[in-house]
């Protein structure tokens, strides 16, 4: 046939070409597209691991997710914050970058080393087609940390600072060549709001609304021990975690990845503790630690959550603060030794003092050590006893170095109940009683945290902090159902004094409570109330059974139903807290307020409160009181059952 239609030839040619080169063309399809294709087949972007690494969390109302990370550079795709699929594909593409590592810049494989590691495991990168970057900086960093374990660090509350009960948490990376005696050399990883703000109020407000960037940073653990144990006098609890070497590596890789990244910092939820949980989840993706803390992450509650996980905590270590050590060692001393400590630490006596010279070498060592530590305590709390405390401190230590003997005191005993083992921090109560001749049923809800009558194990003695305590009562007749009180904030610190420690006790609360008027009505009145006080322990030991206290309190009430729309009062409160048994506590109190300005009145209140602990999370209370307002007096009796969770 002379004529061959050209189209046939063309098609034939094409077919030949395809046959010959087809496979090659397919193989020549960029490796990145193959990887992306495979990632789609495996639906990697839907995996929990990917969501953990990217900190994706479900949207509140609309379907879909968004990442908690707020730094643009954390995302390689323009819509990476909300689109896991496109972020994963952009990440794969970025791994082909040939950017060389410098001191300020990293190749994406190194900057996102945790993502690289996971995607490599899932997709099996071919090093011939996707050359592996050396990531020298990451490797050297990891070698310096030389990780063998991860420990969750929880500084407990400091005395006379109830707010510190909420605590702070950080992670410690324990190196292979360290042991119990050299743990100070480990590195700590801390997540905190990054700001130079020194105005506490501005700091608080900005923090509430995410006004600061939260960032991970690291520092030697000894700085943190010095800060908490020595400066803030807070005991530290260390929870060694049971992580496999791979999981520890994942923590480190992810920390590295988050190093330059910020998250908007919110004090209440997206705070230090929340992100540490996220780190642990990235290490072990099947852990679910964060879901309970979407709205409210109290550091001590996050510690409980970690402890609750099966086999996650290997063991715990207690590191007493300087204050705790001094207090304990003073308790072991004779009165003569104590008075020597008191005078030597203030430079009023020296080693040539006859009383000191007469002691055994071991007692001399003890007196000098405690004198030094107590002087350090005074310096840390801003009350230097002498003009040059550093020189006095040095003198005490030089004297100590001349004594070969040891002070020989036993170590501070570990508290029987850890902070994570105390009662739950939320509370609901139901009770019934009679007030001024009317029976009532009361329902009380307190979202957080601890009051003086709650079971004390695991908490700081004398410290109370509560947020949004709400009591509603239903009276049998006449009044009906009404809000009895709503207290957004209440703090009480009863800090006992002795020859060595002279803290000021204090209290402050604000909210709405019932006040009786002359006409017999009881409006819900806004008030701010508080004042300073003094307290003592009897006997004077850290865990004594009785606290007695006295306060001078003032009250400002504001309400249109008050005469002149306000009332301003002042008056004393005295009371005693007494543990009759380990479970049974009683508090007797008497309180008077003289309202001298605005709506004047003289009111008082005396009462007895009792609590009996049934179980860690259950307690019974029985309160009786008699009070007087606007020349009318009445009694109240209330029996209630409290459940902590």
């Amino acid at each position, binding site marked *: 046939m002379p004529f061959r239609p050209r189209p046939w030839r063309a098609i034939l040619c094409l077919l030949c070409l395809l046959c010959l080169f087809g496979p090659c063309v397919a193989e020549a399809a960029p490796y990145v597209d193959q990887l992306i294709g495979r990632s789609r087949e495996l639906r990697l972007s839907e995996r929990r691991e990917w969501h953990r690494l990217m900190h994706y969390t479900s949207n509140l109302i609309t379907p879909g997710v968004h990442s908690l990370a707020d730094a643009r550079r954390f995302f390689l795709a323009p819509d990476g914050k909300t689109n896991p699929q496109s972020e994963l594909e952009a990440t794969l593409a970025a791994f082909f970058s040939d950017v060389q590592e410098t001191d300020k810049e990293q190749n994406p494989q190194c900057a996102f080393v945790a993502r690289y590691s996971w995607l490599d495991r899932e997709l099996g990168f071919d090093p011939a087609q996707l050359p592996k970057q050396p990531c020298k900086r990451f490797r*050297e960093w990891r070698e310096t940390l030389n990780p063998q374990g991860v420990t969750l660090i929880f500084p407990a509350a400091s005395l006379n600072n109830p707010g510190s009960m909420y605590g702070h948490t950080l992670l410690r990376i324990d190196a292979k060549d360290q042991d119990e005696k050299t743990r100070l050399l480990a590195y700590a990883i801390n997540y905190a709001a990054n700001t130079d703000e020194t105005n506490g109020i501005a*700091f608080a407000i900005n923090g509430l609304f995410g006004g600061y960037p939260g960032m991970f*940073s690291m520092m030697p653990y000894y700085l943190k021990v010095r800060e908490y144990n*020595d400066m803030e006098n807070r005991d530290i609890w260390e929870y060694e975690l049971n992580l496999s070497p791979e999981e520890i590596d994942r923590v480190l890789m992810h920390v590295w990845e988050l190093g330059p990244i910020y998250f908007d910092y919110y004090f209440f939820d997206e705070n230090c503790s929340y992100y540490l949980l996220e780190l642990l989840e990235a290490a072990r993706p099947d852990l679910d630690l964060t879901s309970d803390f979407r709205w409210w992450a109290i550091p001590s509650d996050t510690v409980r959550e970690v402890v609750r996980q099966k086999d996650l905590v290997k063991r715990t270590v207690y590191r007493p603060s300087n204050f705790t050590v001094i207090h304990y060692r003073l308790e072991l001393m004779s009165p003569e030794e104590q008075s020597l400590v008191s005078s030597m630490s203030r430079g009023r006596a020296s080693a040539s003092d006859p009383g000191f010279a007469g002691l055994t070498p071991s007692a001399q060592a003890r007196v000098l050590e405690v004198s030094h530590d107590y002087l350090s305590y005074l*310096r840390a709390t801003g009350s230097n006893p002498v003009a040059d405390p550093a020189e006095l*401190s040095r003198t005490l230590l030089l004297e100590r170095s001349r004594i070969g003997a040891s002070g020989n005191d036993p170590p501070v005993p570990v508290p029987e109940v850890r902070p994570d083992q105390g009662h739950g921090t939320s509370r609901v109560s139901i009770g019934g009683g009679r007030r001024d001749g009317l029976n009532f049923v009361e329902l009380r809800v307190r979202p957080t945290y601890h009051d003086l009558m709650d079971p004390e194990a695991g908490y700081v003695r004398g410290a109370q902090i509560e947020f949004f305590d709400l009591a509603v009562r239903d009276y049998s007749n006449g009044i009906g159902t009404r809000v009895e009180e709503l207290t957004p904030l209440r703090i009480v610190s009863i800090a006992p004094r002795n020859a060595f420690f002279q803290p000021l006790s204090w209290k402050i609360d604000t909210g709405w409570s019932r006040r009786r008027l002359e006409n017999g009505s009881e409006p819900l009145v806004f008030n701010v109330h508080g004042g300073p006080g003094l307290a003592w322990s009897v006997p004077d030991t850290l865990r004594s059974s009785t606290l007695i206290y006295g306060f001078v309190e003032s009250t400002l009430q504001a309400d249109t139903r008050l005469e002149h729309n306000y009332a301003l009062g002042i008056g004393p409160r005295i009371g005693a807290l007494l543990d009759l048994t380990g479970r049974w506590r009683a508090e007797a109190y008497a309180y008077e307020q003289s309202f001298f300005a605005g709506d004047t009145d003289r009111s008082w209140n005396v009462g007895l409160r009792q609590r009996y602990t049934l179980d860690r999370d259950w307690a019974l209370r029985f309160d009786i009181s008699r009070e007087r307002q606007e020349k009318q007096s009445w009694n109240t009796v209330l029996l209630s059952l409290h459940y902590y969770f």
Partner: protein
Amino acid sequence: MKKILIAAVISALPAFAFAQQNNIGTCGWGSKLFDGQSGIAPQVLGVTTNNSTGNQTFAITTGTSGCTQDGVVKSTWKTAMFIDGNKDRLARDMSIGNGETLDSLAHLIGVREEDRATFNRVVQANVSLIFPSGSTTGDSVVALKQVLRSDRELSQYAASI
């Protein structure tokens, strides 16, 4: 006699030699030790503010900055910065002749287990030289080096400070 000799050697050294040569000034922790806050206001405000420790922290991947590399202390600075961050505790442990801070220092310098007792004894005997009145971290580092160098058994460790 030996003590006097060491003291003489140390005082002959320009106190700032080490500091200048190695620029410890920019390397310390900017120690906020003994900068305590007292009173009620900081406590009340402390209630709603999680603790942030600003200047003592290092960002993790910022490359070289002062004496750290990507958030960890460069190895040449480990000992000096440890002494700087633990001065009071270290002086205390040295004067007692044992303790966690002293153990950590010995580990950092690489003192072997069999030399620990000697190390503890020697620093205890020389604590006044290692922490002279009004001493800076630089002074203490130089003095510690000298004290170790002057001891027959411990001189091998002087170089690792």
